[in-house]
Protein backbone atom coordinates (compact mmCIF):
# COMPACT_ATOMS: atom_id res chain seq x y z
CA UNK A 1 0.00 0.00 0.00
CA UNK A 2 1.26 3.48 -0.88
CA UNK A 3 -0.27 5.64 1.85
CA UNK A 4 1.23 8.84 0.49
CA UNK A 5 -0.61 8.36 -2.81
CA UNK A 6 -3.84 7.41 -1.00
CA UNK A 7 -3.62 10.58 1.08
CA UNK A 8 -2.86 12.64 -2.01
CA UNK A 9 -5.89 11.27 -3.88
CA UNK A 10 -8.20 11.53 -0.88
CA UNK A 11 -7.12 15.11 -0.19
CA UNK A 12 -7.80 16.19 -3.78
CA UNK A 13 -11.10 14.31 -3.89
CA UNK A 14 -12.28 16.22 -0.83
CA UNK A 15 -10.80 19.53 -1.94
CA UNK A 16 -12.08 19.47 -5.52
CA UNK A 17 -15.09 17.17 -5.15
CA UNK A 18 -18.70 18.29 -5.00
CA UNK A 19 -18.98 20.86 -2.21
CA UNK A 20 -22.68 20.21 -1.66
CA UNK A 21 -22.05 16.49 -1.05
CA UNK A 22 -19.14 17.33 1.24
CA UNK A 23 -21.27 19.77 3.25
CA UNK A 24 -24.21 17.34 3.55
CA UNK A 25 -21.96 14.43 4.54
CA UNK A 26 -20.22 16.44 7.23
CA UNK A 27 -23.55 17.79 8.44
CA UNK A 28 -24.95 14.25 8.78
CA UNK A 29 -21.80 13.09 10.60
CA UNK A 30 -21.95 16.09 12.93
CA UNK A 31 -25.62 15.55 13.74
CA UNK A 32 -25.04 11.81 14.23
CA UNK A 33 -22.28 12.66 16.70
CA UNK A 34 -24.38 15.27 18.53
CA UNK A 35 -27.17 12.69 18.73
CA UNK A 36 -24.79 10.10 20.24
CA UNK A 37 -23.51 12.46 22.91
CA UNK A 38 -26.83 14.16 23.54
CA UNK A 39 -28.87 10.99 24.13
CA UNK A 40 -26.36 9.56 26.61
CA UNK A 41 -25.87 12.91 28.32
CA UNK A 42 -29.55 13.73 28.73
CA UNK A 43 -30.23 10.34 30.34
CA UNK A 44 -27.20 10.88 32.56
CA UNK A 45 -28.61 14.31 33.34
CA UNK A 46 -31.98 12.87 34.36
CA UNK A 47 -30.33 10.36 36.71
CA UNK A 48 -28.12 13.10 38.10
CA UNK A 49 -31.16 15.35 38.69
CA UNK A 50 -32.93 12.56 40.59
CA UNK A 51 -29.79 11.93 42.62
CA UNK A 52 -29.27 15.62 43.34
CA UNK A 53 -32.83 15.91 44.60
CA UNK A 54 -32.31 12.91 46.86
CA UNK A 55 -29.04 14.30 48.22
CA UNK A 56 -30.24 17.89 48.61
CA UNK A 57 -33.70 17.24 50.04
CA UNK A 58 -33.93 13.71 51.37
CA UNK A 59 -30.83 11.75 52.32
CA UNK A 60 -27.87 14.10 52.14
CA UNK A 61 -24.74 11.95 51.66
CA UNK A 62 -24.96 9.44 54.48
CA UNK A 63 -27.95 8.19 56.47
CA UNK A 64 -27.54 6.66 59.94
CA UNK A 65 -30.52 4.70 61.29
CA UNK A 66 -30.90 2.80 64.58
CA UNK A 67 -29.42 -0.62 65.20
CA UNK A 68 -31.73 -3.60 64.67
CA UNK A 69 -34.53 -3.74 67.30
CA UNK A 70 -33.87 -0.16 68.40
CA UNK A 71 -36.30 2.68 67.77
CA UNK A 72 -33.76 5.42 68.31
CA UNK A 73 -30.08 6.06 67.91
CA UNK A 74 -28.96 6.28 71.47
CA UNK A 75 -25.94 8.49 71.24
CA UNK A 76 -25.68 11.59 73.33
CA UNK A 77 -24.64 14.74 71.49
CA UNK A 78 -24.55 12.83 68.20
CA UNK A 79 -24.61 16.05 66.16
CA UNK A 80 -21.52 17.46 67.82
CA UNK A 81 -19.66 14.13 67.75
CA UNK A 82 -20.30 13.55 64.07
CA UNK A 83 -19.69 17.17 63.03
CA UNK A 84 -16.14 17.01 64.33
CA UNK A 85 -15.20 14.00 62.17
CA UNK A 86 -12.88 14.57 59.17
CA UNK A 87 -14.74 14.99 55.87
CA UNK A 88 -18.03 15.92 57.55
CA UNK A 89 -19.54 19.25 56.57
CA UNK A 90 -22.79 19.22 58.56
CA UNK A 91 -25.12 16.90 60.44
CA UNK A 92 -28.90 16.89 60.96
CA UNK A 93 -30.79 14.66 63.38
CA UNK A 94 -34.44 13.75 62.92
CA UNK A 95 -37.19 12.07 64.83
CA UNK A 96 -39.43 10.25 62.39
CA UNK A 97 -43.03 9.39 63.15
CA UNK A 98 -45.92 8.05 61.10
CA UNK A 99 -48.93 10.15 61.96
CA UNK A 100 -52.48 10.79 60.85
CA UNK A 101 -53.13 14.37 59.89
CA UNK A 102 -56.75 15.53 59.90
CA UNK A 103 -58.20 18.74 58.52
CA UNK A 104 -61.71 19.80 59.54
CA UNK A 105 -62.26 22.85 57.39
CA UNK A 106 -65.22 24.30 59.34
CA UNK A 107 -64.28 22.71 62.68
CA UNK A 108 -67.75 21.17 62.83
CA UNK A 109 -66.99 17.48 62.35
CA UNK A 110 -68.21 17.51 58.72
CA UNK A 111 -66.07 17.31 55.58
CA UNK A 112 -62.96 15.99 57.34
CA UNK A 113 -59.93 15.27 55.15
CA UNK A 114 -57.24 13.02 56.56
CA UNK A 115 -54.30 10.84 55.66
CA UNK A 116 -51.27 9.05 57.06
CA UNK A 117 -47.96 10.73 56.39
CA UNK A 118 -44.44 10.89 57.70
CA UNK A 119 -43.71 13.67 60.17
CA UNK A 120 -40.12 14.50 60.89
CA UNK A 121 -38.64 16.81 63.45
CA UNK A 122 -35.83 19.11 62.55
CA UNK A 123 -33.50 21.55 64.14
CA UNK A 124 -34.24 24.32 61.61
CA UNK A 125 -30.84 26.03 61.70
CA UNK A 126 -28.93 22.75 61.51
CA UNK A 127 -31.26 21.42 58.79
CA UNK A 128 -30.41 24.38 56.57
CA UNK A 129 -26.82 23.16 56.46
CA UNK A 130 -27.84 19.70 55.30
CA UNK A 131 -30.97 19.92 53.15
CA UNK A 132 -32.57 22.55 50.92
CA UNK A 133 -36.10 22.32 52.37
CA UNK A 134 -35.78 25.89 53.65
CA UNK A 135 -35.25 27.05 50.05
CA UNK A 136 -38.33 25.20 48.85
CA UNK A 137 -41.07 27.12 50.64
CA UNK A 138 -43.87 28.05 48.23
CA UNK A 139 -46.19 29.54 50.84
CA UNK A 140 -45.80 30.83 54.39
CA UNK A 141 -42.41 30.46 56.00
CA UNK A 142 -39.87 27.95 57.25
CA UNK A 143 -39.74 26.81 60.91
CA UNK A 144 -37.82 28.53 63.71
CA UNK A 145 -36.19 26.57 66.54
CA UNK A 146 -38.61 28.09 69.04
CA UNK A 147 -41.77 27.21 67.09
CA UNK A 148 -44.08 24.89 69.04
CA UNK A 149 -47.57 24.56 67.60
CA UNK A 150 -46.47 25.07 64.06
CA UNK A 151 -46.04 22.62 61.19
CA UNK A 152 -44.82 22.89 57.63
CA UNK A 153 -46.32 20.58 55.04
CA UNK A 154 -45.17 19.15 51.73
CA UNK A 155 -47.37 20.17 48.82
CA UNK A 156 -48.70 16.62 48.41
CA UNK A 157 -50.17 16.87 51.93
CA UNK A 158 -51.45 20.44 51.67
CA UNK A 159 -52.65 20.18 48.09
CA UNK A 160 -52.29 22.81 45.31
CA UNK A 161 -48.91 24.07 44.01
CA UNK A 162 -48.98 21.43 41.26
CA UNK A 163 -49.41 18.53 43.67
CA UNK A 164 -49.10 15.14 42.03
CA UNK A 165 -51.47 13.59 44.61
CA UNK A 166 -54.18 16.23 44.80
CA UNK A 167 -56.91 13.68 45.41
CA UNK A 168 -55.17 12.51 48.63
CA UNK A 169 -54.28 15.94 49.94
CA UNK A 170 -55.97 17.88 52.74
CA UNK A 171 -56.68 21.08 50.84
CA UNK A 172 -55.16 23.29 53.55
CA UNK A 173 -53.62 26.73 53.28
CA UNK A 174 -51.11 28.58 55.41
CA UNK A 175 -52.77 29.59 58.65
CA UNK A 176 -55.23 26.67 58.71
CA UNK A 177 -55.21 24.31 61.67
CA UNK A 178 -54.68 20.57 61.43
CA UNK A 179 -54.93 17.82 64.04
CA UNK A 180 -52.03 15.39 64.16
CA UNK A 181 -52.43 11.94 65.73
CA UNK A 182 -48.95 10.55 66.46
CA UNK A 183 -48.26 6.84 66.53
CA UNK A 184 -47.96 6.88 70.36
CA UNK A 185 -51.56 8.14 70.67
CA UNK A 186 -50.71 11.78 71.37
CA UNK A 187 -52.87 14.30 69.54
CA UNK A 188 -51.72 17.85 68.82
CA UNK A 189 -53.24 20.70 66.89
CA UNK A 190 -50.86 22.68 64.67
CA UNK A 191 -51.14 25.80 62.59
CA UNK A 192 -49.78 25.40 59.08
CA UNK A 193 -46.83 27.77 59.01
CA UNK A 194 -45.62 27.00 55.54
CA UNK A 195 -45.90 24.75 52.51
CA UNK A 196 -42.87 23.47 50.63
CA UNK A 197 -42.40 21.96 47.22
CA UNK A 198 -39.39 19.97 46.05
CA UNK A 199 -38.85 17.74 42.99
CA UNK A 200 -38.82 14.69 45.27
CA UNK A 201 -42.24 13.06 45.72
CA UNK A 202 -41.30 11.36 48.99
CA UNK A 203 -40.21 14.66 50.51
CA UNK A 204 -43.37 16.35 49.25
CA UNK A 205 -45.35 13.77 51.24
CA UNK A 206 -43.63 14.73 54.50
CA UNK A 207 -44.32 17.28 57.20
CA UNK A 208 -41.89 18.93 59.59
CA UNK A 209 -42.16 20.17 63.14
CA UNK A 210 -39.38 21.37 65.41
CA UNK A 211 -37.23 19.00 67.43
CA UNK A 212 -38.39 20.50 70.70
CA UNK A 213 -42.02 19.94 69.72
CA UNK A 214 -41.41 16.33 68.73
CA UNK A 215 -39.50 15.56 71.93
CA UNK A 216 -42.45 16.84 73.94
CA UNK A 217 -44.76 14.57 71.95
CA UNK A 218 -42.58 11.48 72.14
CA UNK A 219 -41.25 12.24 75.62
CA UNK A 220 -37.70 11.31 74.62
CA UNK A 221 -34.69 13.59 74.64
CA UNK A 222 -31.33 13.65 72.98
CA UNK A 223 -32.20 10.78 70.68
CA UNK A 224 -32.89 10.52 66.95
CA UNK A 225 -34.57 8.21 64.47
CA UNK A 226 -32.19 9.11 61.67
CA UNK A 227 -29.11 11.22 61.22
CA UNK A 228 -28.20 12.79 57.90
CA UNK A 229 -24.51 13.48 57.36
CA UNK A 230 -23.38 15.89 54.68
CA UNK A 231 -19.83 15.24 53.50
CA UNK A 232 -17.45 17.87 52.15
CA UNK A 233 -17.35 16.04 48.84
CA UNK A 234 -19.16 13.06 47.39
CA UNK A 235 -16.02 11.01 46.86
CA UNK A 236 -15.21 10.98 50.56
CA UNK A 237 -18.44 9.19 51.60
CA UNK A 238 -16.70 5.83 52.11
CA UNK A 239 -13.98 7.37 54.22
CA UNK A 240 -16.52 9.29 56.33
CA UNK A 241 -18.52 6.09 56.96
CA UNK A 242 -15.35 4.44 58.27
CA UNK A 243 -14.74 7.46 60.52
CA UNK A 244 -18.33 7.30 61.82
CA UNK A 245 -17.90 3.61 62.67
CA UNK A 246 -14.59 4.34 64.37
CA UNK A 247 -16.20 7.12 66.41
CA UNK A 248 -18.51 4.66 68.12
CA UNK A 249 -21.47 4.03 65.81
CA UNK A 250 -20.76 0.30 65.79
CA UNK A 251 -24.18 -1.26 65.50
CA UNK A 252 -26.15 1.46 63.70
CA UNK A 253 -27.12 1.01 60.10
CA UNK A 254 -25.04 3.41 58.00
CA UNK A 255 -25.70 3.79 54.31
CA UNK A 256 -24.66 6.03 51.46
CA UNK A 257 -27.51 7.87 49.77
CA UNK A 258 -26.91 5.78 46.65
CA UNK A 259 -27.71 2.56 48.53
CA UNK A 260 -31.15 3.96 49.26
CA UNK A 261 -31.86 4.83 45.63
CA UNK A 262 -33.39 1.61 44.39
CA UNK A 263 -35.56 3.41 41.83
CA UNK A 264 -32.84 5.45 40.21
CA UNK A 265 -30.45 2.53 40.12
CA UNK A 266 -33.04 0.63 38.06
CA UNK A 267 -33.86 3.71 36.00
CA UNK A 268 -30.20 4.36 35.40
CA UNK A 269 -29.74 0.86 33.97
CA UNK A 270 -32.83 1.28 31.77
CA UNK A 271 -31.58 4.66 30.56
CA UNK A 272 -28.20 3.13 29.78
CA UNK A 273 -29.93 0.45 27.73
CA UNK A 274 -32.10 2.98 25.86
CA UNK A 275 -29.03 5.12 25.32
CA UNK A 276 -27.09 2.17 23.87
CA UNK A 277 -29.98 1.26 21.54
CA UNK A 278 -30.46 4.84 20.31
CA UNK A 279 -26.69 5.28 20.03
CA UNK A 280 -26.38 2.06 18.04
CA UNK A 281 -29.16 3.17 15.67
CA UNK A 282 -27.48 6.58 15.25
CA UNK A 283 -24.11 4.93 14.61
CA UNK A 284 -25.58 2.51 12.07
CA UNK A 285 -27.33 5.38 10.25
CA UNK A 286 -24.02 7.28 10.16
CA UNK A 287 -22.24 4.14 8.91
CA UNK A 288 -24.86 3.58 6.19
CA UNK A 289 -24.60 7.23 5.13
CA UNK A 290 -20.85 6.88 4.72
CA UNK A 291 -21.35 3.55 2.96
CA UNK A 292 -23.73 5.13 0.43
CA UNK A 293 -21.46 8.12 -0.19
CA UNK A 294 -18.37 5.99 -0.72
CA UNK A 295 -20.35 3.42 -2.70
CA UNK A 296 -21.61 6.12 -5.10
CA UNK A 297 -18.09 7.51 -5.37
CA UNK A 298 -16.68 4.03 -6.10
CA UNK A 299 -19.37 3.33 -8.71
CA UNK A 300 -18.78 6.71 -10.38
CA UNK A 301 -15.04 6.05 -10.45
CA UNK A 302 -15.27 2.44 -11.59
CA UNK A 303 -13.33 3.08 -14.81
CA UNK A 304 -10.77 5.26 -13.07
CA UNK A 305 -10.20 2.53 -10.47
CA UNK A 306 -9.62 0.02 -13.29
CA UNK A 307 -7.10 2.29 -14.94
CA UNK A 308 -5.38 3.09 -11.63
CA UNK A 309 -5.00 -0.65 -11.12
CA UNK A 310 -3.78 -1.04 -14.69
CA UNK A 311 -1.04 1.54 -14.16
CA UNK A 312 0.12 -0.40 -11.11
CA UNK A 313 -1.80 0.95 -8.16
CA UNK A 314 -2.27 -1.77 -5.54
CA UNK A 315 -5.70 -2.65 -4.15
CA UNK A 316 -4.64 -1.53 -0.65
CA UNK A 317 -3.78 1.94 -1.95
CA UNK A 318 -7.20 2.22 -3.62
CA UNK A 319 -9.02 1.03 -0.49
CA UNK A 320 -7.03 3.47 1.65
CA UNK A 321 -7.88 6.29 -0.78
CA UNK A 322 -11.61 5.86 -0.08
CA UNK A 323 -11.28 4.92 3.61
CA UNK A 324 -9.25 8.07 4.30
CA UNK A 325 -12.10 10.12 2.80
CA UNK A 326 -14.61 8.29 5.00
CA UNK A 327 -12.45 8.84 8.08
CA UNK A 328 -12.11 12.49 7.18
CA UNK A 329 -15.90 12.85 7.12
CA UNK A 330 -16.10 11.05 10.47
CA UNK A 331 -13.29 13.08 12.04
CA UNK A 332 -14.71 16.43 10.94
CA UNK A 333 -18.12 15.24 12.20
CA UNK A 334 -16.55 14.44 15.58
CA UNK A 335 -14.72 17.77 15.81
CA UNK A 336 -17.72 19.86 14.77
CA UNK A 337 -19.99 17.71 16.96
CA UNK A 338 -17.79 18.20 20.03
CA UNK A 339 -17.65 21.94 19.38
CA UNK A 340 -21.42 22.11 18.95
CA UNK A 341 -22.00 20.11 22.14
CA UNK A 342 -19.46 21.92 24.30
CA UNK A 343 -19.90 25.47 23.04
CA UNK A 344 -23.58 25.59 22.09
CA UNK A 345 -25.75 22.77 23.47
CA UNK A 346 -24.13 22.45 26.89
CA UNK A 347 -24.12 26.18 27.77
CA UNK A 348 -27.71 26.35 26.53
CA UNK A 349 -28.74 23.56 28.90
CA UNK A 350 -26.76 25.00 31.80
CA UNK A 351 -28.56 28.32 31.48
CA UNK A 352 -31.93 26.72 30.62
CA UNK A 353 -32.17 23.32 32.33
CA UNK A 354 -35.23 21.25 31.51
CA UNK A 355 -37.95 21.26 34.15
CA UNK A 356 -38.53 17.53 34.64
CA UNK A 357 -40.84 16.23 37.38
CA UNK A 358 -37.78 14.59 38.94
CA UNK A 359 -35.61 17.68 38.97
CA UNK A 360 -33.87 20.30 36.85
CA UNK A 361 -32.23 18.33 34.08
CA UNK A 362 -29.08 19.43 32.31
CA UNK A 363 -26.65 17.44 30.16
CA UNK A 364 -24.21 15.21 31.99
CA UNK A 365 -21.37 15.01 29.50
CA UNK A 366 -18.62 12.71 30.71
CA UNK A 367 -15.24 11.85 29.23
CA UNK A 368 -16.51 8.31 28.82
CA UNK A 369 -19.50 9.43 26.72
CA UNK A 370 -17.21 11.53 24.51
CA UNK A 371 -14.74 8.65 24.18
CA UNK A 372 -17.41 6.08 23.26
CA UNK A 373 -19.09 8.50 20.82
CA UNK A 374 -15.75 9.24 19.12
CA UNK A 375 -14.96 5.55 18.77
CA UNK A 376 -18.50 4.76 17.53
CA UNK A 377 -18.59 7.41 14.82
CA UNK A 378 -15.05 6.80 13.59
CA UNK A 379 -15.68 3.03 13.54
CA UNK A 380 -18.90 3.63 11.58
CA UNK A 381 -16.95 5.77 9.10
CA UNK A 382 -14.18 3.18 8.85
CA UNK A 383 -16.51 0.24 8.29
CA UNK A 384 -18.94 2.23 6.10
CA UNK A 385 -16.03 3.37 3.94
CA UNK A 386 -14.11 0.12 3.85
CA UNK A 387 -16.69 -2.26 2.37
CA UNK A 388 -17.61 -0.37 -0.82
CA UNK A 389 -13.94 0.58 -1.32
CA UNK A 390 -12.81 -3.03 -0.89
CA UNK A 391 -15.50 -4.28 -3.27
CA UNK A 392 -14.53 -1.66 -5.86
CA UNK A 393 -10.82 -2.35 -5.54
CA UNK A 394 -11.31 -6.11 -5.78
CA UNK A 395 -13.02 -5.93 -9.17
CA UNK A 396 -10.80 -7.11 -11.99
CA UNK A 397 -9.18 -4.45 -14.12
CA UNK A 398 -11.14 -5.43 -17.22
CA UNK A 399 -14.41 -5.59 -15.34
CA UNK A 400 -13.76 -2.14 -13.88
CA UNK A 401 -12.85 -0.55 -17.20
CA UNK A 402 -15.47 -2.18 -19.40
CA UNK A 403 -18.12 -3.19 -16.87
Amino acid at each position, binding site marked *: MNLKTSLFLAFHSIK*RGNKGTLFMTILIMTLAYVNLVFVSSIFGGIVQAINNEAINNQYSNIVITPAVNNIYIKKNHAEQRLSSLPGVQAVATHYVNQAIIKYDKNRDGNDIQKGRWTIKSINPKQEEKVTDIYKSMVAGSYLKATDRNQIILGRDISGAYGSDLEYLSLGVKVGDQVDVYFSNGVKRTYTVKGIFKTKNTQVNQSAFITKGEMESVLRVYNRSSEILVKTKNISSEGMVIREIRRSGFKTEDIKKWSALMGFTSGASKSFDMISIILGAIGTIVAGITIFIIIFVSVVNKRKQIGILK*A*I*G*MREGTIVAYFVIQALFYGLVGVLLGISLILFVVRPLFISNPLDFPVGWVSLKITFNIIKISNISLLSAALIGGFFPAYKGAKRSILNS*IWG
Partner: protein
Amino acid sequence: MIIEVKNLKKTYEALVPVKVLKNINFEVKKGEFLALMGRSGSGKSTLLHQLGLLDTPSSGKIIIDGIDLMSLSEKQKSQFRLKKLGYVFQSYALLPELTALESVFLPLMLDNIPKKEYLKKAAKMLKKVGLGKKLNHLPQELSGGEQQRVAIARALVNDPLILFADEPTANLDSEASLTVIKLFRELNKEIGQTIIMVTHEPDDEQYVDRVIWLKDGIIKKDY
Protein backbone atom coordinates in the same frame (compact mmCIF):
# COMPACT_ATOMS: atom_id res chain seq x y z
CA MET B 1 12.79 -9.62 -29.03
CA ILE B 2 10.93 -7.64 -26.48
CA ILE B 3 7.79 -9.80 -26.63
CA GLU B 4 7.51 -13.50 -27.36
CA VAL B 5 4.08 -15.09 -27.53
CA LYS B 6 3.96 -18.88 -27.65
CA ASN B 7 0.89 -21.08 -28.11
CA LEU B 8 -1.33 -18.51 -26.43
CA LYS B 9 -4.90 -19.59 -25.82
CA LYS B 10 -7.78 -17.86 -24.03
CA THR B 11 -11.09 -19.51 -23.39
CA TYR B 12 -13.89 -17.85 -21.45
CA GLU B 13 -15.57 -20.47 -19.34
CA ALA B 14 -19.33 -20.40 -19.66
CA LEU B 15 -22.13 -22.88 -20.24
CA VAL B 16 -20.63 -23.18 -23.70
CA PRO B 17 -16.91 -22.29 -23.41
CA VAL B 18 -15.89 -19.49 -25.79
CA LYS B 19 -12.46 -19.92 -27.40
CA VAL B 20 -11.38 -16.34 -28.08
CA LEU B 21 -7.69 -16.91 -28.80
CA LYS B 22 -6.57 -20.12 -30.45
CA ASN B 23 -2.89 -20.90 -30.39
CA ILE B 24 -1.36 -17.48 -31.06
CA ASN B 25 2.37 -17.24 -31.81
CA PHE B 26 4.34 -14.11 -32.70
CA GLU B 27 7.22 -11.93 -31.63
CA VAL B 28 7.66 -8.17 -31.35
CA LYS B 29 10.93 -6.33 -31.75
CA LYS B 30 11.97 -3.45 -29.53
CA GLY B 31 10.89 -0.10 -31.01
CA GLU B 32 8.23 -1.66 -33.21
CA PHE B 33 4.84 0.07 -33.73
CA LEU B 34 2.41 -2.81 -34.14
CA ALA B 35 -1.30 -2.62 -34.93
CA LEU B 36 -3.66 -5.43 -33.95
CA MET B 37 -6.58 -5.30 -36.33
CA GLY B 38 -9.62 -7.36 -37.13
CA ARG B 39 -13.37 -7.30 -36.94
CA SER B 40 -15.33 -7.12 -33.73
CA GLY B 41 -15.01 -10.40 -31.86
CA SER B 42 -11.78 -11.34 -33.64
CA GLY B 43 -9.89 -11.41 -30.34
CA LYS B 44 -7.64 -8.37 -30.84
CA SER B 45 -8.56 -6.62 -27.55
CA THR B 46 -8.39 -9.93 -25.68
CA LEU B 47 -4.90 -10.48 -27.05
CA LEU B 48 -3.86 -6.98 -25.96
CA HIS B 49 -5.20 -7.64 -22.46
CA GLN B 50 -3.17 -10.83 -22.15
CA LEU B 51 -0.02 -9.07 -23.35
CA GLY B 52 -0.63 -6.13 -21.02
CA LEU B 53 -1.12 -8.30 -17.92
CA LEU B 54 -4.70 -7.13 -17.57
CA ASP B 55 -6.03 -10.66 -17.93
CA THR B 56 -4.66 -14.18 -17.52
CA PRO B 57 -4.38 -16.55 -20.51
CA SER B 58 -5.83 -20.05 -20.32
CA SER B 59 -2.54 -21.51 -21.57
CA GLY B 60 0.61 -20.61 -23.42
CA LYS B 61 3.49 -18.27 -22.69
CA ILE B 62 4.08 -14.55 -22.84
CA ILE B 63 7.64 -13.43 -22.31
CA ILE B 64 8.34 -9.74 -22.02
CA ASP B 65 11.91 -8.52 -21.71
CA GLY B 66 12.93 -12.09 -20.84
CA ILE B 67 10.38 -12.47 -18.03
CA ASP B 68 7.71 -15.15 -18.23
CA LEU B 69 4.58 -13.26 -17.19
CA MET B 70 2.83 -16.45 -16.09
CA SER B 71 5.35 -16.90 -13.29
CA LEU B 72 4.52 -13.57 -11.60
CA SER B 73 2.38 -13.26 -8.49
CA GLU B 74 -0.41 -10.63 -8.37
CA LYS B 75 1.88 -8.30 -6.40
CA GLN B 76 4.68 -8.76 -8.92
CA LYS B 77 2.23 -8.18 -11.77
CA SER B 78 1.23 -4.82 -10.21
CA GLN B 79 4.89 -3.84 -9.95
CA PHE B 80 5.58 -5.03 -13.50
CA ARG B 81 2.66 -2.99 -14.86
CA LEU B 82 3.81 0.06 -12.92
CA LYS B 83 7.45 -0.10 -13.96
CA LYS B 84 7.47 -1.68 -17.41
CA LEU B 85 4.11 -1.11 -19.11
CA GLY B 86 1.97 1.82 -20.12
CA TYR B 87 -1.68 1.84 -21.16
CA VAL B 88 -3.97 4.05 -23.15
CA PHE B 89 -7.61 3.05 -23.32
CA GLN B 90 -10.55 4.05 -25.45
CA SER B 91 -11.91 5.67 -22.30
CA TYR B 92 -9.27 8.02 -20.89
CA ALA B 93 -10.96 7.86 -17.46
CA LEU B 94 -8.96 10.60 -15.77
CA LEU B 95 -9.79 11.24 -12.13
CA PRO B 96 -12.02 14.35 -12.22
CA GLU B 97 -10.32 15.87 -9.16
CA LEU B 98 -6.79 15.76 -10.58
CA THR B 99 -5.20 18.32 -12.88
CA ALA B 100 -3.36 17.17 -16.00
CA LEU B 101 -0.05 17.42 -14.15
CA GLU B 102 -1.32 15.45 -11.14
CA SER B 103 -2.79 12.72 -13.34
CA VAL B 104 0.53 12.32 -15.10
CA PHE B 105 2.78 12.26 -12.06
CA LEU B 106 0.56 9.73 -10.26
CA PRO B 107 2.43 6.62 -11.60
CA LEU B 108 5.73 8.23 -10.54
CA MET B 109 4.35 8.97 -7.10
CA LEU B 110 3.29 5.34 -6.83
CA ASP B 111 6.86 4.40 -7.71
CA ASN B 112 8.15 6.58 -4.83
CA ILE B 113 10.02 8.96 -7.11
CA PRO B 114 11.01 12.19 -5.27
CA LYS B 115 8.54 15.06 -5.67
CA LYS B 116 10.92 17.42 -7.42
CA GLU B 117 11.75 14.79 -9.99
CA TYR B 118 8.19 13.64 -10.66
CA LEU B 119 6.95 17.20 -11.11
CA LYS B 120 9.68 17.90 -13.63
CA LYS B 121 9.18 14.66 -15.50
CA ALA B 122 5.38 14.97 -15.67
CA ALA B 123 5.57 18.56 -16.91
CA LYS B 124 8.10 17.52 -19.56
CA MET B 125 5.87 14.67 -20.71
CA LEU B 126 2.80 16.93 -20.95
CA LYS B 127 4.86 19.39 -22.98
CA LYS B 128 5.85 16.55 -25.27
CA VAL B 129 2.18 15.68 -25.95
CA GLY B 130 1.39 19.34 -26.62
CA LEU B 131 -0.21 20.25 -23.31
CA GLY B 132 2.61 22.30 -21.82
CA LYS B 133 0.24 25.21 -21.26
CA LYS B 134 -2.53 23.18 -19.67
CA LEU B 135 -0.68 21.57 -16.78
CA ASN B 136 -3.14 22.79 -14.17
CA HIS B 137 -6.34 22.14 -16.06
CA LEU B 138 -8.86 19.70 -14.67
CA PRO B 139 -10.35 17.06 -17.04
CA GLN B 140 -13.60 19.01 -17.45
CA GLU B 141 -11.56 21.94 -18.74
CA LEU B 142 -9.99 19.84 -21.50
CA SER B 143 -11.40 18.51 -24.79
CA GLY B 144 -11.67 14.75 -25.42
CA GLY B 145 -8.51 14.80 -27.53
CA GLU B 146 -6.63 16.70 -24.85
CA GLN B 147 -7.80 14.30 -22.17
CA GLN B 148 -6.57 11.40 -24.28
CA ARG B 149 -3.21 13.13 -24.63
CA VAL B 150 -3.06 13.47 -20.82
CA ALA B 151 -3.75 9.71 -20.66
CA ILE B 152 -0.92 9.10 -23.14
CA ALA B 153 1.44 11.28 -21.09
CA ARG B 154 0.40 9.31 -17.97
CA ALA B 155 1.13 6.06 -19.81
CA LEU B 156 4.55 7.19 -20.92
CA VAL B 157 5.80 9.11 -17.91
CA ASN B 158 7.48 6.13 -16.29
CA ASP B 159 9.34 5.25 -19.50
CA PRO B 160 7.57 1.95 -20.13
CA LEU B 161 9.12 -0.77 -22.23
CA ILE B 162 5.86 -1.15 -24.12
CA LEU B 163 2.88 1.13 -24.58
CA PHE B 164 -0.43 -0.69 -25.04
CA ALA B 165 -3.23 1.26 -26.66
CA ASP B 166 -6.73 -0.17 -26.90
CA GLU B 167 -8.64 1.71 -29.60
CA PRO B 168 -7.26 5.05 -28.33
CA THR B 169 -9.05 7.12 -30.98
CA ALA B 170 -12.47 5.43 -30.84
CA ASN B 171 -14.03 8.24 -28.79
CA LEU B 172 -12.38 11.09 -30.66
CA ASP B 173 -13.32 13.13 -33.72
CA SER B 174 -11.20 12.80 -36.90
CA GLU B 175 -8.94 15.75 -36.09
CA ALA B 176 -8.23 14.64 -32.54
CA SER B 177 -7.75 11.04 -33.74
CA LEU B 178 -5.17 12.15 -36.25
CA THR B 179 -3.33 14.17 -33.60
CA VAL B 180 -3.19 11.14 -31.29
CA ILE B 181 -2.06 8.66 -33.96
CA LYS B 182 0.59 11.10 -35.21
CA LEU B 183 1.75 11.56 -31.64
CA PHE B 184 2.20 7.80 -31.30
CA ARG B 185 4.20 7.69 -34.52
CA GLU B 186 6.33 10.60 -33.33
CA LEU B 187 7.05 8.95 -29.98
CA ASN B 188 7.85 5.72 -31.75
CA LYS B 189 10.28 7.42 -34.10
CA GLU B 190 11.80 9.87 -31.60
CA ILE B 191 12.34 7.74 -28.54
CA GLY B 192 11.95 4.28 -30.06
CA GLN B 193 8.87 3.56 -28.00
CA THR B 194 7.48 0.09 -28.60
CA ILE B 195 3.74 0.45 -29.19
CA ILE B 196 1.05 -2.21 -29.58
CA MET B 197 -2.24 -0.70 -30.60
CA VAL B 198 -5.66 -2.19 -31.23
CA THR B 199 -7.49 -0.26 -33.92
CA HIS B 200 -10.47 -0.50 -36.21
CA GLU B 201 -9.33 2.27 -38.47
CA PRO B 202 -7.87 1.06 -41.81
CA ASP B 203 -6.27 4.52 -42.20
CA ASP B 204 -4.09 3.86 -39.16
CA GLU B 205 -2.12 1.24 -41.13
CA GLN B 206 -0.03 3.97 -42.78
CA TYR B 207 1.39 5.06 -39.40
CA VAL B 208 2.44 1.66 -38.06
CA ASP B 209 5.38 -0.62 -38.84
CA ARG B 210 3.46 -3.82 -38.81
CA VAL B 211 -0.12 -5.15 -38.74
CA ILE B 212 -1.33 -8.40 -37.23
CA TRP B 213 -4.77 -9.22 -38.59
CA LEU B 214 -6.85 -11.49 -36.44
CA LYS B 215 -9.90 -13.48 -37.38
CA ASP B 216 -11.82 -15.78 -35.04
CA GLY B 217 -8.95 -15.95 -32.57
CA ILE B 218 -6.16 -16.78 -34.96
CA ILE B 219 -3.60 -14.69 -36.85
CA LYS B 220 -4.77 -14.44 -40.42
CA LYS B 221 -2.20 -11.99 -41.71
CA ASP B 222 1.04 -10.57 -40.36
CA TYR B 223 2.49 -7.86 -42.60
